């Protein structure tokens, strides 16, 4: 649509001018850009601008409520010499990797279990989704109480079974704390995988299973050579989504452990929060947050291209 309308002649009567304005507005490109302008401006102001401003902040020494001074890459140098930063990096990758694998395997198992006929299936499916829809902070508080050092309900049973008192310190031991946040993240994300994969399973034509059975395929072979290949696109999308938001997770860790004990569960987002909001170092905090960008950008670009291709 590169053809421009004829310029109006000076003698055009108002009605004709109004009519040609109408014609102009009716063009697909004009209508589209006018329609999209408000949301695009909104996103430019509150996503685009903060994003660029964040990059600028990361290059400044900027204590809260002070004017920033440009320091180049000094903040990033500080990060790379900081032992806690590397611990945080390791934590984030471990957390994302294990939680994603657990959600994928568990979600597939959930979907396969739910892909059978049984009474009250819709009710069960609705209940299964509850962990995913309830505000994360509120369910995390419940987990915090389940794992309480003194009154953990798990420990009550373990002690009843003969484990010496007071039982494991779920959030006080570095390894157990990491295990706990991984399990809770899995608990919350599992329904998303399960229900999405279930929808995928329901689109698999039954004839394919019948054909595979006639060809002598057993249950595992039907799963391996019929189900998995057909589910692959859905698994890929769900996993990319989940990896992005697990990698940048904040609320669960902030509420449950605040990154402790001794930074054993500190992730990029919680560490950046500590530095920026706790210690008031906006520049340094922004630099920690931005170190997530390369990995996130790769994932986001991959997923964006994949979604567009569909």
């Amino acid at each position, binding site marked *: 649509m590169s053809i421009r309308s004829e310029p109006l002649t000076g003698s055009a009567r108002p009605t004709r001018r109004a009519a040609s304005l109408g014609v102009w507005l009716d063009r697909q490109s004009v209508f589209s850009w006018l329609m*999209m302008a408000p949301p695009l401006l909104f996103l430019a102001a509150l996503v685009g601008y903060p994003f660029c*401003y964040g990059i600028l*902040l990361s290059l400044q020494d900027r204590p809260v409520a002070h004017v920033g001074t440009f320091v180049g890459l000094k903040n990033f140098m500080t990060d790379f010499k900081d032992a806690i930063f590397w611990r945080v990096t390791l934590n984030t990758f471990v957390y994302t990797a294990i939680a994603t694998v657990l959600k994928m395997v568990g979600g597939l198992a*959930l979907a396969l279990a739910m892909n059978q006929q049984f009474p009250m299936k819709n009710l069960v499916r609705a209940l*299964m989704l509850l962990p995913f829809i309830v505000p994360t902070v*509120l369910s995390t508080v419940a987990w915090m109480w389940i794992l309480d050092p003194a009154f953990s309900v798990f420990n009550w049973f373990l002690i009843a079974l003969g484990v010496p008192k007071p039982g494991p310190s779920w959030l006080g031991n570095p390894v157990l704390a990491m295990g706990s946040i991984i399990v809770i993240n899995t608990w919350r994300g599992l329904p998303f995988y399960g229900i999405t994969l279930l929808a995928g399973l329901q689109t698999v034509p039954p004839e394919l299973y019948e054909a595979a059975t006639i060809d002598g395929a057993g249950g595992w072979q039907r799963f391996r050579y019929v189900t998995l290949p057909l589910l692959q696109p859905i698994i890929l999308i*769900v996993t990319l989504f989940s990896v992005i938001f697990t990698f940048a997770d904040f609320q669960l860790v902030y509420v449950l452990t605040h990154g402790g004990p001794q930074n054993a569960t500190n992730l*990029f987002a919680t560490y950046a929060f500590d530095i920026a909001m706790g210690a008031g170092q906006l520049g340094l905090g922004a630099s920690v947050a931005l170190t997530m960008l390369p990995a996130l950008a790769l994932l986001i670009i991959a*997923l964006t291209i994949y*979604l567009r291709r569909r």
Partner: protein
Amino acid sequence: MVTGYGPIERLVRLWLPVGFFLVLALFPFYWMAVTSLKPNAELYNRRIMPLVVHNPTLKHYIDLLTETSFLVWTWNTMLVAVVSTAISLVLGVMLAYPLARMRFAGAGLIAMTVAAVYLVPQPLLFIPLADLINRLDLGNTLTAVILTYPTMLVPFCAWLLLGYFKTVPMELEEAARIDGAGRLQTMRRIFLPLCTPGFISAGIFAFTLSQNEFLYALIFLTQSAVRTVPVGVIAELIRGDVFYWGQLMAGALLGSIPVAIIYSFFVEHYVAGLTSGSVKG
């Protein structure tokens, strides 16, 4: 598929795994409910079997509603969720309609940008946004979160609606165009009324996401009168090292109920939106 399992095989293949997942999913909610109904004497007694309530009491609920600002937080949460959902739906339609229906240069690029913006997680933006909100003098106002929640919700609604719009047949709009209706008129009178299910899906998701939001609310809202439920519960029911577990669990349960109710009415729309493969997990 193969049918005709025996009862034992059905138990192993169906009821054991489904039962396991169901107990796993629901136990924390059961535990919230049980804890919130226990008197403190029972709550902090390690000798009593903890899974059931022996002397139920509503004391924690009464304390929560009378001694804390929980009702104010609930009102704030609802107000913010409703307003930001409404804003996001309107702006989302304004993005999605041209992308779904019009042919113009740059459409592909805009669609890519919307998808990418939707995938940008909050921790990448919260520090500069905090500074921005400060400079605009919007700290401790609900406007701060009403403005920032749509940054996640607009691209999200636009993306979900774009998918939905593409499934709506074009004949009615073409007929309206032939009858001389303008583009805006065609969109508002003919097209949008056909898309109610899409709006419900996007609306519920946006509503749940705003109820769930924590980071921006934590940073922007530091006074009790403007807090939302998640921030209020974390900031005011945990005082130093003192945890008011009974009230915390009562608050967690009451705070979960609005989302759960709305969700239960529209669960099919929710699942439809979820499985369109465009939801944050």
